[in-house]
């Protein structure tokens, strides 16, 4: 599904090197967690997967379903099945959440050469998924992310993910800003999407999200490199001992 090979990347504007040779392979159906201290390059990795222009890949490659996506525009990657749930979802004033959802779904369908969804079909799908994520009709009518609480923003992200049905889900610090109840709703939403054809990369700072979304593999990212890989017990170990050991190891 996803193969990251010796990926080096820097900030385009000032040349600061962030990723220093990341190797990662995620097979279909697997959930991988990437943990690490602040500044280790976790969010950068997610942005680079999605194609943000602020970064420059200087070495290595990213293969998605066997093909390099480095030359693809963000919208092409999206239509190919890459979804990024943002740590800080962006506000789009004046655009109702519902309108945004429909525009995004139809844009992707069109890019793949599929028919646009009819309005009743679209409504049916939204209603189904919104109910599961406790997203109300009122929220769907409000402009996307404008005035949303932390929990509402994250639920809206997962709703988009559920409707767009990506094959690779990247969750960037989805637990930040969530209380324990909101965390449970969001995690359940993510778990419902687990399937043998879909891979998930969960980026997080804390173990608590992984109590709810149980990973198959846990990686520790430090100073732009994956320094340790293990099973779900690795996350518990990190929770207990902190990242100090790995920060030292990478240096």
């Amino acid at each position, binding site marked *: 599904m996803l193969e990251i090979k010796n990926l080096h990347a820097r900030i385009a504007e000032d040349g600061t090197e962030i990723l220093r040779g990341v190797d990662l392979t995620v097979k279909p159906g697997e959930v991988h967690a990437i943990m690490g201290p602040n500044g280790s390059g976790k969010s950068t990795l997610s942005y680079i997967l*999605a*194609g*943000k*222009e*602020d970064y420059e890949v200087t070495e290595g490659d990213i293969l998605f379903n066997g093909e390099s996506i480095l030359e693809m*525009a*963000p*919208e092409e*990657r*999206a*239509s190919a099945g890459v*979804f*990024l749930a*943002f740590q800080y*979802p*962006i*506000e*789009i*004033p*004046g*655009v109702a959440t*519902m*309108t*945004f959802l*429909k*525009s*995004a*779904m*139809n*844009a*992707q369908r069109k*890019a793949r050469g599929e028919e*646009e969804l009819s*309005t009743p079909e679209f409504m049916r799908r939204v209603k189904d998924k919104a109910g599961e994520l406790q997203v109300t009709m009122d929220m769907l009518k409000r*402009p996307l992310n404008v005035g949303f609480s932390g929990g509402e923003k994250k639920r809206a992200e997962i709703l*988009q993910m559920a409707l*767009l049905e990506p094959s690779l889900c990247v969750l960037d610090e989805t637990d930040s800003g969530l209380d324990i109840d909101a965390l449970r709703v969001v995690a359940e939403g993510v778990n419902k999407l687990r399937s043998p054809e879909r891979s998930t990369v969960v980026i997080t700072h804390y173990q608590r999200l992984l109590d709810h979304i149980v990973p198959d593999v846990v990686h520790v990212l430090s100073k732009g490199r994956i320094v340790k890989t293990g099973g779900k017990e690795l996350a518990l170990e990190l929770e207990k001992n902190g990242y100090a050991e790995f920060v030292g190891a990478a240096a």
Partner: protein
Amino acid sequence: MPAVQETIDRVRSIDVDQYKYGFFTDIESDKAPKGLNEDIIRFISAKKEEPEWMLEWRLDAYRRWLTMTEPTWARVEYPPIDFNDIYYYSAPKTAAGPKSLDEVDPELLATYEKLGIPLREQEILAGVEPKNRVAVDAVFDSVSVVTTFKEELKKAGVIFCSISEAMREHPELVRKYLGTVVPVTDNFYATLNSAVFTDGSFVYVPEGVRCPMELSTYFRINEQNTGQFERTLIIADKGAYVSYLEGCTAPQRDENQLHAAVVELIALDDAEIKYSTVQNWYPGDSEGKGGIYNFVTKRGDCRGKNSKISWTQVETGSAITWKYPSCILRGDNSRGEFYSIAVSNGCQQIDSGTKMMHLGKNTSSRIISKGISAGRSQNTYRGLVSAHRKASNARNFTQCDSLLIGQDCGAHTVPYIESKNATAVFEHEATTSKISDDQMFYCQQRGLSGEEAVALIVNGFVKDVIQQLPMEFAVEAQKLISISLEGSVG
């Protein structure tokens, strides 16, 4: 919702940098010699078979105009205009006052068809009324070529015709109201218009009548080096209601062309006039060559108590726009509204806004202005809200929002507030924002292309104003805005 998708389709379907209405109709026309003098004015007046008082009115205006100088206070730059290098009258030869559509030159009908303007009154099939019927007055260069649905409007008592025809058929109404809102001496371009105006629309809605359909005028400048000086006069008598829309296009040319119109609205007691504009004159090419100079005076007079005048404008065209649709809130409890979307791209310059002059008691006004600048354009909102000494309890709410796309454009807000009455309450809010890279990336991550993302964000930005447009035109306006902004990203 569907509009967004249609907008995108439309943007996709046309080439970048192509003004859709830039074609020219090859039709023989009857022109006055180039230049401006009293003989030209006599020529225009004679062509229109005007009464003597009208000619005198024009000549007075012309003599006054000779003593005036062009205004320079607007934030726009252009080389001096040679007023003697313009044709002041041009009419398609075959169009001199056709009585019915069958008499209209097929070449002209084809032109309007190409522009998407329905001139054929839809036939009523088996008792099924077509949904959105709109009566159209089509003005081609200096003359009105046809007005539709006249008979049906007549049944309701509504007069809708060209102003030339009104001068002949209803001189008492024209004489009573013409120049009473925008006086002959008002400003340089309004005075010029008073001297040389050629055609435009006239609407009179009698007491207590709610006009049974949308009225609209479609202005087309076709001939080269021709100025269009239209004059529109709309009167809503006591308790009447009318909704009117104007649309404008012109061929793509390298020279600049002048359009100096005057629009006067009069609302008597309890009357309401809703005036909408979708202005899409040729804006010039991306280097700023060619395009229309749109120097327009539009003013409404809420003359009666409880009257209401509402201006809605979507401005996407013209090289230079200089336009301030205003309301005089004379009657007690009268209300004025101004909703505007001004889009500038390429090298366009816009200096537009409104004036709300509160004279009567308990008058209220509302201004919502949305400016969108892209390319190397400059977009200025200039507005005045004033309360007269006697305007107790005057209320105004103003909101001016500007959206910038790219690095090289400018947005400016110049609000003037003058209050001579201590009970007046005026509120002003203004914001300036930019479509951020983060917003673009977020939308693209969800699968929208750069242009689709801009269209979506801009549609969100202008939503408050689009909602004010008559339904039939709201979708059209959204499409137009997206087309105007194409090529502004990436």
